[in-house]
């Protein structure tokens, strides 16, 4: 497998990380918290999508839509229940609460879905074979022996659509502009008459919707288990911090850097060492925090 093929893998990985990282970084920038339970929102989206497509069964676009709505709703409800009440206590209690919530959600899902997600594995199979015949077999020959599967195209295409939609939202709509204003200075935004609670809620919904989409895209490529989101949270976090926590455009850039590093490390690491490629995202994270803690395009995170 050539280098170019790895770059394609990297772009695919970068794409779904980016979709999730945008949501994550919006929460950081506007609600001012690191939401460690965010990975579980991906898992919830993935399961809802897989169940909708496989058990009902529904066509993929409807399953994606249902998953996004479900994750968005879950994100808003959880925020109202757990995060909004302690909003004033500062970043550390919020982070710890999200870690607790992540434990609850992850293990709650594990209880209902089983440890290996086996129950849903067959559903994933039906999901692919019956509803997506073209996705399970299709691949596009790009150049010589370079291939991209239709599933991979779906992921990259979804990401492009999300990026364009996000850009439009943040630059052309009142809600998006209010979000940016809140990210810059919440008090000033409130003085200017922005309904900050409403904007917060919109951010939670948007972040949940994006997590749902990212979850389904990950699920379509592999299978879904209770650990799906948790396995990706540190990559999402690394991408968001690399890009500069709070900056959605930075998060996109950071995600592709992480995605490509993961994919290329597989190409360059000796066989049997490929397992450590997952540590590379964390290494990037630590190095970025040390060298330029504000990331590529972000706010200052050092104290004083």
């Amino acid at each position, binding site marked *: 497998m050539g280098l170019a093929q790895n770059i394609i893998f990297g772009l695919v990985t970068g794409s779904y990380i980016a979709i999730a990282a945008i949501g994550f970084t919006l929460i950081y920038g506007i609600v001012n918290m690191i939401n460690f339970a965010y990975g579980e929102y991906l898992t919830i989206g993935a399961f809802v999508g897989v169940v909708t497509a496989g058990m009902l069964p529904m066509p993929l676009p409807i399953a994606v839509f249902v998953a996004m709505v479900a994750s968005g709703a879950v994100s808003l409800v959880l925020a109202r229940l757990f995060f909004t009440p302690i909003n004033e206590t500062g970043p550390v209690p919020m982070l710890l609460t999200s870690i607790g919530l992540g*434990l*609850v959600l992850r*293990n709650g899902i594990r209880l209902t879905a089983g440890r290996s997600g086996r129950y849903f594995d067959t559903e994933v199979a039906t999901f692919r074979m019956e509803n997506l015949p073209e996705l399970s077999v299709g691949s596009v020959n790009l150049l010589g022996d370079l291939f991209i599967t239709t599933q991979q195209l779906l992921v990259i295409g979804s990401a492009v659509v999300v990026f364009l939609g996000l850009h439009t939202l943040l630059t052309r709509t009142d809600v998006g502009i209010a979000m940016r204003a809140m990210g810059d200075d919440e008090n000033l935004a409130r003085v200017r008459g922005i309904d900050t609670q409403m904007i917060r809620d919109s951010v939670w919904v948007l972040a949940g919707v994006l997590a749902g989409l990212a979850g389904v895209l990950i699920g379509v490529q592999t299978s879904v288990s209770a650990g799906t989101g948790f396995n990706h949270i540190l990559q999402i976090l690394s991408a968001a911090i690399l890009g500069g926590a709070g900056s959605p455009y930075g998060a996109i850039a950071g995600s592709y850097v992480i995605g490509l590093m993961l994919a290329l490390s597989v190409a360059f690491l000796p066989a049997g060492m490929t397992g450590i490629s997952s540590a590379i995202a964390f290494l990037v994270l630590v190095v970025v925090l040390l060298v330029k803690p504000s990331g590529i395009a972000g706010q200052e995170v050092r104290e004083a």
Partner: protein
Amino acid sequence: MSVADRLPKSDSERALLFGGICIVLGALLTLTPLRTTLPSGLYVFFEVGILFVIYGILVLGLNLQYGHTGLVNFGHVVFFAVGAYTVAMLSAQDTFAGIGLGFPWPLTLVVGVVAAALLGAIVGATSLRLRDDFLAIATLATAEIFHTLFINFRGIFGGNVGILGVPQPVKEFAGDADTTLLATLLLIGGFAALTFTVVTRLTDAPYGRVLRAIRADELVTRSVGKATFTYKMQSFVYGAALAGLAGGLFALYNGAVAPGYFTIQVTVTVWIGMLLGGAANNRAVLAGLAIIMGLRLLSRFALGVAPVSADAFASIRLVVVGMILIIVIRYRPAGIWGNAKELGVDS
């Protein structure tokens, strides 16, 4: 003077006496032909108890870092793991996979503590200037990096199997299983009590007041001429060294180390114990940890009677643990025995 007057008054002195007695009793059981028999129904108490005293050393170190100094270390398990792996790699003989050099264990325990302290110094020197929640993420990521290294560098760390054949000094000397269990609990419990003495003396001293001043307001503390970064580094390194000691003792008790013993679950357990009891209060954090470990005990018993699988039970326990964390932060942010006023939280 009656005997009662001679008894120590302060917590740290009582812990010193208690720890000393525990170690003497443990040593007696280990080194003499003295033998004991435990009711087999109580084994589970001893196993969880040993884990409790090991985690007790961890929580005291973490409390020094977070409770007293305000450093949000969410990768505490990495120092525990480094201590354990150092001891295991240096002392193991006939290990199945990975390195086993077969050095005498007392020496390796010292090296394990030093190695953990050294890693603490490296992590601290690079990350302690970060904002609280970013420090948490940096330390968490460090822990995950090491976890991945332990799993993947099979030739060095033994991969998923870990390192077997670590000497178990208590077991070797004490002979039978029952005596070993009791002696181990006494010896490590003694170490935990001595740790309590040392940490409490440190935090009761003017030194501890500086640490708490840094937690309350670093800028003000610096403005009155304290080298706050040096204090933060020391606190972080001491905490890491204690975690290394706990790790080394764990390796020598368990006889093996593997990545499965050093997951984020350990970090979460000690954090919840600390927050539940009340950060900054050395006695309270141990009590909080005891409650969380009690839950573990309870779940072991419930497993015997409840009609669910062990897997499901593990999940239920973690759901409960997560809920406790959320509820404590929401309704008792200073913990059960913590001083809300001092910690600067509204409860």
